């Protein structure tokens, strides 16, 4: 894995999606896209406002 101090996510088509571990909105756990390897994922980035 490449460790980087960059805080910007660059999700390029054809490249691995970066590993960014964030808390869930209920605060119960932390997750990253890497936790879903083995499944196909539709990632939706949004906001309720």
């Amino acid at each position: 894995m490449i460790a980087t101090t960059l805080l910007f996510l660059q999700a390029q088509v054809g490249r691995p999606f970066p590993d960014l571990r964030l808390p869930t909105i209920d605060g119960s756990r932390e997750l990253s896209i890497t936790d879903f390897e083995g499944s196909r994922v539709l990632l939706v980035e949004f906001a309720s406002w």
Partner: protein
Amino acid sequence: MQLVGITQEQHPERCRLFAQWKEMEWPILWDPFNLTGSQAVPNFTAIDEFGVVRIQRPDPAAFQDEFLTAEFSPVEAERPVIEVSGDLRDLMSREPDKLGPALAKLEARALEAPQSGALQFQLGVGYRMRFDSERAEPGDFQAALDAWGRALEIDPNQYIWRRRIQQFGPRLDKPYPFYGWIAEAREAIRARGAEPQELVAGLTGSELASPGREAARAEDPVQPDAKGRIRRDEGEFALVDSAVALDTQGREGVARVHLAFRPNHLNKAHWNNEAGPMRVWLGEAELPPGVSVDRRLLVISGPAEAVSSERREVDFEVQLSGTRPGTSLTGYALFYACEDVDGICVYRRRDFEIALP
């Protein structure tokens, strides 16, 4: 296929309420600091079982063929790891003891890289987090607005950052009512027999306000203490803090002012809700020349309990025209408070002065 969400939101409980309303039962991650670097939302990304990005903004009509039933192979490339710094983790923990030290570290990092819009934005998020906590310090909200303003000046195309300011800003700068859906959501959830998710940080009027083309003009209510006869409180019972949110599009003379009142815990003061609500009057007999507001008299009601200690917030629109530099808006709050349990209960007037842009 698995759905996963990332929300660009200051307050995760609001997203929880939204997810509850829309019955979104998939994992949603909280990214208050915009670590993804997205400049706008929504974004959709299709990722295969090897963790490889296959499609950005998939076409719904072609999704089945191009993703769901397509065959993919692993790629020979290392996965980047985005480390989340300790100060941001501590701020996201929202543990009161961690907020101050984490914010100090973030301030130091932002000072070392003054041209980093991202750090300025994150600094603003941190200040607002502390403002929303029991460890709020005077000036936190204004510091948040100022940091976000610096971020937006560095990158004016960052719409996530712009929206964070507009959320609290004047109606002239609003694209839509940010949280206008909340009442409908609560009603719908209760109709299903469930209890709506509680919000931790209360909604300000600015977050519910609809866009406006003109600043509303105040009617002429009667000034509650025109003769200045109510005894002044110099902070013994109530502390006051203010923040001014400017128009992000640079329109001068338009702002949203936020006032926050807290009982002075050092004196064990608390609000007395039995005698009546808090009333806030803006200006004196007249407003300063060139200053207009959407309301002169604001009322802040307390909870149903007889006594309480919550922070009381109210916000209003200000429009300036031809004001002199250094113009400020004075006003006062009239409130009922008590000192300690079974202590004296008083009716007081707390004056304040707000520096206008």
